[in-house]
């Protein structure tokens, strides 16, 4: 117990009275309770086997506004109080007759539950070796004995504030992560579900392979496919400007507009884009827009009728080779009264249409060089030659080999073949 008396008594501490609630007084005002965040909600566990030390430390804590204090006088009690009291900070004496503080600290750090708990060790030994032993056992900080109230309060406050900020950040992070996971599931539900897509493809004698990935949790890409008039299939793909939440919300808006469009207005791609443009102009903030492609595959006359709003050039693959389609057109939702153009190309049995978002064509290799639409065309050509039955996975694998799995932009890729 020799070191117990080494603790400096503060000016107004008699050392024998039980802990009292914080009150205004010399200690309180001198030691700056008013600074920083209020600590009234914080809990501190004092592990010290000296009653005198416990009282003194309790008094200091009261000056800092901390009234929720519990005590432990042995290693077993420390473990029990950690569980039952759930402290925000542990004030631990490094060396006590009945407790090996260093050992307690080390074992707490081995337990994931207490890995982040601030542990302030008090030590009467001031050598650098002793300090090093404390820190390597996992102490967050040290307070030298005799304990000075000002230093003690400042260090306790610092670590509690830091912990509170970390907890706040972590809680915020967890909440946002949870929300984004939910939003992501909702976004994935916007695009055709696998079984539904397979059934639609089968009925319309198509083979459809798709990739849909967001660079962050959610993004601004969106695509859908639907059958109408018995022999027609509409394919709509859009990329909302920007990234993340704002782009995703705009993708949902576009999806809503599209699902509210009656089937008879789906036949004419240019007129559909004109209508969507008008409605998007009313709801999108200035500078936000979508690039889009809408095509109608017609089995009876073997054609693809399409209109586009500045989308990446789709690739048409026929017996004559691979050919980029003109997908120029005004951005969707940027300017009212934009005019769109219908274009018609042959699309016979065995021909394929490859649609992709710029996330794929604007990917950069390790050397910083951008793949570009020409580069992507060559990749598609190779994939079609090497894996005619399943070209898209082959293309994506080759793409990942050059540009990595993680891209900086949302990626949509659709490979549609008429069978």
């Amino acid at each position: 117990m020799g070191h117990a008396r080494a603790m400096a008594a503060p000016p107004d501490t008699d050392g024998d009275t039980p802990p009292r609630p914080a009150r205004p007084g010399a200690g309180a005002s001198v030691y700056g309770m008013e600074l920083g965040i209020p600590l009234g909600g914080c809990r501190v566990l004092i592990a010290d086997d000296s009653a005198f030390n416990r009282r003194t430390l309790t008094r200091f804590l009261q000056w800092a506004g901390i009234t929720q204090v519990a005590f432990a006088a042995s290693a077993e009690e420390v473990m029990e109080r950690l569980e039952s009291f759930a402290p925000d900070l542990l004030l631990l004496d490094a060396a006590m007759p009945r407790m090996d503080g260093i050992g307690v600290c080390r074992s707490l750090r081995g337990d994931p539950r207490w890995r982040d708990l601030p542990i302030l060790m008090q030590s009467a030994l001031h050598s650098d070796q002793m300090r090093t032993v404390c820190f390597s056992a996992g102490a967050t900080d040290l307070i030298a004995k005799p304990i000075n109230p000002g230093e003690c309060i400042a260090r306790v406050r610092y670590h509690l504030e830091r912990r509170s900020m970390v907890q706040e950040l972590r809680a915020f992070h967890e909440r946002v992560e949870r929300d984004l996971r939910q939003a992501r599931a909702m976004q994935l539900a916007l695009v055709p579900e696998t079984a539904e897509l397979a059934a639609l493809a089968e009925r319309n004698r198509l083979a459809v392979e798709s990739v849909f990935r967001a660079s962050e949790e959610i993004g601004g890409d969106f695509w859908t496919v639907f059958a109408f008039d018995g022999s027609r299939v509409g394919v709509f793909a859009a990329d909302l400007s920007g990234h993340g939440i704002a782009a995703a919300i705009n993708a949902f808006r576009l999806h809503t507009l599209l699902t509210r469009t009656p089937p008879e207005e789906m036949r004419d791609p240019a007129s559909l884009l004109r209508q969507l443009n008008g409605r998007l102009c009313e709801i999108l903030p200035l500078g936000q827009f979508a690039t889009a492609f809408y095509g109608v595959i017609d089995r009876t006359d073997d054609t693809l009728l399409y209109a586009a709003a500045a989308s990446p050039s789709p690739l048409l693959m026929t017996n004559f080779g691979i050919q980029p389609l003109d997908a120029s057109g005004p951005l969707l939702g940027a300017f009212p009264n934009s005019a769109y153009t219908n274009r018609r190309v042959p699309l016979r049995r065995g021909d394929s249409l490859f649609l992709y978002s710029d996330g794929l064509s604007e990917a950069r290799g390790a050397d910083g060089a951008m793949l570009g639409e020409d580069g992507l065309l060559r990749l598609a050509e190779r994939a079609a030659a090497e894996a005619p039955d399943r070209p898209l996975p082959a293309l994506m694998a080759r793409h990942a080999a050059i540009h990595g799995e993680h891209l900086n932009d949302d990626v949509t890729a659709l490979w549609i073949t008429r069978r």
Partner: protein
Amino acid sequence: MDFSVREAPASTEIVLSGRMTFADHDTFRDVIATFERPAGHRVVFDLSRLDFVDSSGLGMFIIARDTAQRRNLDFALRGARDEVRRLITIAKFHTMFNIAD
């Protein structure tokens, strides 16, 4: 993206350089600050040193055009090349912007 401003009595030329992307919203606010000019003043974006524009970059051109219209400035784009030229061509910007090439 970086930018530099060349002032003449009746015109302001803003040279944009590098990559104009999502990350440049703050820089772009400084670009827009140079639009504080009297009605009729000419403001030109010189794009000849711009290597790349993403969709957010195109959005910034749209905001610049709108700002210029509200202040009655004579706004134009000039000198786009390669990828930037391709993008503003497929988006048919010549129908909405004054392209001074």
